[in-house]
Structure formats: C-alpha cells, structure tokens
C-alpha cells in the first residue's frame, strides 16, 4: 500500500490558487522533503492531506484512505502542523495525556514519548515556560504517541538552534531506518538535504521537481571540487565521460556530477585524488534557481 497519494489536489482561496493540481505518491519507507519558498502552498497541501482543509478539487489518500475516514488515525499517522499548538497554561504531560485519552492510550505512553524527545524533566511544567525548541519536541512527542508508521511534519526545524537541528536530523534518520515513512516540509533545502532521499519542490502551488535527491544533484548540475596531482589527466578522463571541468592549478571544479562519479572516473584513469568535495552551497543554489525561475 502506498503511504500517501495526492490526486490533482487543488485549493483556491478567493482569487488565489494556493495549490494547483498537485499529484504525487509516497512509497512506504521513504523520507521525502516537501520543499518550496514560504507561501508556495506546502502547508495548505499538508492540511488537505490531513483533513483539516477541504480541497477545492482533487483528493488524497493516507495509508489507502482519506484521512478523515481512518479509524483512530493517530495510531498510524503522526503529524505536526504548527510548533505552537499548545495551551500555555497546561503542562506538557497534560497536553499529551489529553491526546492519549482520545485514542485510549494509557497515560504512561505520554511519559514514554516525553523520554524519546528528551523532555521528561520539563513534563510537569507549563508550556509557557518552554523554549521554541522544547515546543517543537513536544509537538513531535504528540505525533509519536500512537507509534505511527507515517510521520508528517510541517517545518519542524523552524526556530531550532543548530544543536536542535542536529537532534531532529538524527531522530528522523533513526525513525526512517526502521522502514517507516516521513514527509517533512521545509523552505530551505539545506536544512533537510542530509535527511531526505527524495524531494518534491513546489512554488506557486505547482511542482517544479519531483525526484530523488541524487538525481536532482546530477540533473541540474551540482558541482564537485577535486584536487589532484594530475589535473590534466583527470580533465581528459572527465572529458571522455562528457563532463566539463574548470581548473585552477591542481583543483578542478566539475559540474553535473556527484562525488561518487568523479571518484570512480579518477580511479579508472589512475589519477590520485588529494581532495574530493561536493560543493556545499550547490544544492541551495539549485533550489533557488528552480524556485525563482518559475516565479519570474
């Protein structure tokens, strides 16, 4: 069974077409980054998937059914749409116990998920004393209550400090490594690049790219910087593989290939590699190129 199916999802708010005929499928066990600039229609799409907002046309299935017809969906789908959806005067533990009651989970489950997100020491405190990072983790704890097989998170890294981002990345990796499915939205590709294995990029409610991260990098031409003691020989070897490289003494910059490919070519050509780096900013540049191309 597919984890998520969207069929021609469309949402119109008055004159504004927020989501324009989006169709996509998520297979179980994948980690998908749902990307686009702010206002691209990501949150509206997620709300439609989760039954909070009715599509103007089209439909979506979550684990084979429309979300609103799932019996106790929280036991198979965990979702967080806003990091701030808490009553400030209520403790974190009570927030979770309230959710537990609706699906007949024992209160002890609240303490289990608080441990997973490392909030157990703050559990009895009122949420108004929580930092943004703690709120993000409490939201995640709520999504994990039902031990779901599908996790849908809207901008979970927003407002996190670098340590929080790393914690989230490690958590999502561990979650996905058990064969479960993750859909995570973000306005910054770099934020999720190390976590996701495929990306859906939208802008103005429409798809720009739907591919694996690997494909995206090679297709749009990410660059690889390689330093070698035999730059001329490597340049020739690359040329035989239809790859262009600009050189500056020992360092070549190769566009349209990833580090795996360049490394293999160098090995086959018997060229020693002294340094091999995927250019860090290239992904973000691709993303900006893609999303601004369509808006102009």
């Amino acid at each position, binding site marked *: 069974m597919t984890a998520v199916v969207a069929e021609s999802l469309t949402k119109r708010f008055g004159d504004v077409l927020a989501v324009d005929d989006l169709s996509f499928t998520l297979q179980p066990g994948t980690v998908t980054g749902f990307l686009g600039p702010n206002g691209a229609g990501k949150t509206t799409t997620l*709300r439609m998937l*989760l*039954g*909070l*907002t*009715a599509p103007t046309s089209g439909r979506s299935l979550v684990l084979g059914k429309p*979300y*609103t017809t*799932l019996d*106790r*969906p*929280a036991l198979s789908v965990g*979702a967080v*749409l*806003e990091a*701030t*959806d*808490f*009553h*400030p*005067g*209520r*403790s974190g533990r*009570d*927030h979770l*116990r*309230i*959710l537990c*009651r*609706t*699906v*007949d989970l024992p209160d002890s489950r609240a303490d289990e998920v608080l441990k997973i997100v490392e909030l157990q020491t703050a559990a009895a405190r009122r949420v108004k004393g929580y930092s943004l990072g703690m709120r993000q983790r409490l939201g995640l704890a*709520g999504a994990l209550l039902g031990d779901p097989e599908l996790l849908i998170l809207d901008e979970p890294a927003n407002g996190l400090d670098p340590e929080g981002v790393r914690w989230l990345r490690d958590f999502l990796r561990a979650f996905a490594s058990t064969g479960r499915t993750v859909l995570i939205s973000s306005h910054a590709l770099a934020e999720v690049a190390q976590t996701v294995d495929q990306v859906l990029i939208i802008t103005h409610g429409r798809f720009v790219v739907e591919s694996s991260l690997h494909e995206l990098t090679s297709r749009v031409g990410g660059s690889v910087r390689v330093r070698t003691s035999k730059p001329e020989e490597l340049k020739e070897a690359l040329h035989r593989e239809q790859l262009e490289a600009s050189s500056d003494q020992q360092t070549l910059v190769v566009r349209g290939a990833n580090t795996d490919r360049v490394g293999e070519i160098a090995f086959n050509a018997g060229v020693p590699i002294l340094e091999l780096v995927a250019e860090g900013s290239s992904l973000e540049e691709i993303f900006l190129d893609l999303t601004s191309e369509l808006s102009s």
Partner: protein
Amino acid sequence: MIAQLKSELLKVRSTRTTVGLFAGMVGLTVLIVLLTGLLTHPDDLVSKHDQRGLFAPSAVALIFSGLAGVLLITSEYRYGTIRPTFLFTPRRGNVLSAKLIAGLLTGLVFGAVSLSLAIGIGSLILSARGIPSTLSGSDFAVLIFGGLAGTALRGAFGVGLGAILRNQVAAVIALLAWDFVVNTLVFGLAPSVGRYMPTPAADALMGLKTPHLLSPGAGGVVLLAWTAALALIGLALTLRRDVT
C-alpha cells in the same frame, strides 16, 4: 465518544481557566447572597418571590457557566490546539458533541455549587434574622432542578456560541452583551417577546415569578431550544469550515 469526553474533561481540569472562573463565581455568589440577605429590609425578604430571588443562582452562575462553555471551545482555536484535536479525532461531530456534554457537566457543577452556597448561606441569614422560610418543598425542588438544568444548558449554550464565533474575545463579548444588553433591553421594552430570550427563559425555569416570565416548563423548553439551535449551527459550521 466516551474517550473524547474523557479528553475534553481533562482539558477543562488541566488549566487554571475553568478553576479561575469557578472561583470567581463562588466569590460573587457569596458576596451577592451576603449583601442581599444582610442589607435587605426584613419586610422585603418574607414573600416566596423575595426568598426565591435570594436563593436562585440566577445571573452569576448562568453567566459563568456560559463563559466556561465559550472558553471550552474558543481556547482551542485561540491556542491552536484545535489542530491536534482534529488530527486525533477527525470526525469533528464527535469532538463537538463531547464538548457540548463537557459544557453541560461544567455548568451542572457550577450550578450545584452556586445553589448550595446561595441556599445554605441565605437560609442561615434568614434564620439568624428571625425571618421564617416561606418556600415549600416543591418550591425548592423547582428552584434546584430548574437551577441545575439552567446552568447545565448554559454551559452547552456557551459551547454552541463559541463554535459559531471561534474567536475567543468576540465570543465572550457576544455572550456578555447578549445577557446584559440585548436580553435586558428586549425584556424591558417588549416583555412579551423578551421572555423568549435565553436569560429570562432561564429565570423562568428556576421558578422565578418576575412579571411576564414564562412558566418553569415553558422557560425550560425555550432555553433548550436556544441551546439546541446554537449547538446545531455550531456543528454545521464546524463540519464545513477549514481549519487553518
């Protein structure tokens, strides 16, 4: 449904909001009974009508039950907890039904406490001042049963109003304006119409005999009709509207 109700009741208990409203209601009830009982001339505390007025939780408990009901739903929209609530229970009719029952129960508790305080303190004052009790057992039965039914319905009434308006400040102002301004004005200017408004209907339900009020039974039916109407409109809107 039972599960959802348990969740709603924990929502009510787990913040200080309802407790604060409850404390406010207790304080005001005690203050009003003390002032009325101690400062009113003995001649104006003798008739059944006077004594009902002293014991009835009337305005205070009705207002606070309504406010508790309003906050039960509008705080979810205000703080965004409505999103996790609907994610866990996408059948929104179940959520709203559970909230209506939670509103009824909250109003019932408010009414029970307010009535106990008013009747307890009021009786003590009457006997201390040597004024004989003139209310019969059946008068008390109407007062107590009607008072509990009135505050319970007002709790659900508040939930219905809150479900329609969603915005907390707007809903609180609407409730207070309706009670203090609209009801009072319409009842004062055109009592034959005004007696069908929610607050005069609730007064009638408790057996108050202010001129122009309906009979207790008719008052109960009218208040029930108002509550049901608000609940149904609130339900229809909740099912239709997008949650953003």
